[in-house]
């Protein structure tokens, strides 16, 4: 199983392709400026980036057997971001995705901007920021780093799958109602593989060559207010992704159920906290937003608890 997130040419409307090319060019432009200003030793940096690109290519060959005929493998977006830093990492991923399109026809040329956006910009830049923030929320240190990297790796795969489907949907080449639950369902599992491999790689590197990673990891967790702020941002991202998926899937799963004629047979859960993502007694948008806020609060509490557990284990 090679779950491809590389969109071929022909699947995206030209307007969508061009808009995403522009977005990608802007972000990569900022990244280039950031790495040029931040490093006195630019040539060494370029050599490392170039060879790291070849490393990401090779690392994507690493797979592990899950069952006969099925395997988990690596995309490497968050790994590149954590190892090289978010800006250099996203440039490396952009280069890798470009070479894959040119040399192996893995993904199209006109849609290359979209593919870089989904995997290199959101996956690497967004992913490594999520990794850093999450690890600060859960208390920093080695364990915090693993939680952050794993969560970000999983989220990066989910986000890339979700964005790909949305872009296809906007271009009229898939049905979002069916495509989104299907893509996210399979990638929820693929993302776990990504998370486990990324954690394994970071764990190995931090054990055998800690100095490579030390400049980029926070040894301590953030202060309480900062932690709450970061936690809320991460929760907000997660919940808005989830809300997006939920808002698309009623006419996915429920419609399949309706078409198949078993919607009436479907039984509601024993109790519903927030039926249909709304709060009883309120209607429309307000209710959905409130339901979202409740969701954010729940996720924040879970993250804080996780952080406390991690911190206690660390001091023990």
């Amino acid at each position, binding site marked *: 199983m090679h779950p491809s997130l590389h969109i071929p040419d022909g699947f995206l409307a030209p307007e969508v392709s061009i808009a995403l090319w522009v977005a990608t060019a802007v972000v990569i432009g900022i990244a280039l400026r950031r790495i040029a200003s931040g490093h006195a030793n630019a040539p*060494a940096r370029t050599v490392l980036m170039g*060879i790291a*690109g*070849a*490393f990401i*290519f090779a690392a994507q060959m690493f797979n592990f057997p899950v069952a006969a005929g099925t395997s988990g493998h690596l995309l490497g977006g968050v790994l590149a971001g954590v190892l090289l830093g978010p800006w250099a990492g996203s440039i490396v991923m952009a280069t890798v995705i470009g070479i894959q399109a040119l040399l192996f026809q893995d993904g199209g*040329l006109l849609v290359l901007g979209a593919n870089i956006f989904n995997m290199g910009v959101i996956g690497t830049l967004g992913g490594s920021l999520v990794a850093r923030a999450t690890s600060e929320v859960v208390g920093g240190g080695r364990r915090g780093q693993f939680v952050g990297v794993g969560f970000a790796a999983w989220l990066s795969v989910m986000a890339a799958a979700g964005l790909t489907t949305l872009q296809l949907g906007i271009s009229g080449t898939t049905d979002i*109602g069916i495509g989104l639950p299907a893509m996210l369902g399979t990638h929820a599992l693929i993302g776990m593989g990504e998370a486990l491999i990324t954690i394994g790689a970071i764990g190995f590197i931090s054990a055998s060559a800690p100095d490579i990673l030390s400049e980029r990891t926070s040894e301590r967790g953030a202060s309480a207010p900062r932690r709450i702020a970061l936690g809320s941002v991460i929760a907000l991202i997660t919940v808005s992704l989830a809300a997006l998926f939920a808002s698309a899937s009623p006419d996915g799963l429920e419609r399949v159920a309706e078409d198949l004629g078993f919607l009436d047979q479907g039984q509601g859960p024993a109790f519903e906290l927030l039926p249909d993502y709304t709060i009883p007694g309120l209607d429309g948008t307000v209710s959905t937003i409130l339901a979202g806020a409740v969701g954010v609060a729940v996720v924040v509490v879970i993250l804080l608890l996780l952080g406390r557990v991690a911190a206690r284990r660390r001091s023990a």
Partner: protein
Amino acid sequence: MIATGRQDARAAIVTTLLVTLAVALLPTGSYLAYLLVWLAVATVAALSGIAPAQLARRALVALPFVVAALPLLFTRSDEIIWAGELGAISLSVSGAGLRILLTTALKAWISVQVALILVKLYPIESIVGSLRALKLPDTIATSAGLTIRYLDLLRNEATRMLRARSSRSASPIGETRERAGGSIPWRARVTGNLAGALFLRAYARAARVEEAATARGARGSLSFGGLQQTDPRIVQKAALALATFALISAAGALLPRF
């Protein structure tokens, strides 16, 4: 720093992108226009010494992605061409959905062939050098050049590490009679460890390359050099590319659709 008789591929790159854009802009259902574009592509391939049949076969790589468009067959409710019952499920197939599916598959198939002609005619170093001449930022061009140069080396190293792993620990259940090593999270961690070990080797290699460059007197700037010779007829070729774009668009607008 990579200097081996680099050819000017700028005109070819521009043509490839314009033809891909023209194909993407063709209206749904304009099969005659697709046929004409494909005949033109196959002719160019044959004239350049590439077997059109081989090209057509290799371009099938993009087709598995068509699965993404399959739901449209059943979710669109216009122009029902077939409706029936499959057990308890009532299904209807939409003609409009089928048309989008076929058009998308054709667009993908033709676009890959166009891209394949480009990479078969020009070595990848020429393409990167030409992109550099077309204002691709130097950091990206240099980084891409190094990635291409070290690609085989690191892929070989990865292959050796995978072979070592499969002869010592985790092989998939069912593929050999021996039990696969460890639980799934254990196998995932081992895979991650391999990736980490490979990164350390890549990191050490980058340091050696940097040292070697300094030892040879490199003074700080590192750049993927420009083109060694430029195509004197670049303007004419670019005009030809634009004409091709206009021709394909006209075919899409004028030829009947189905």
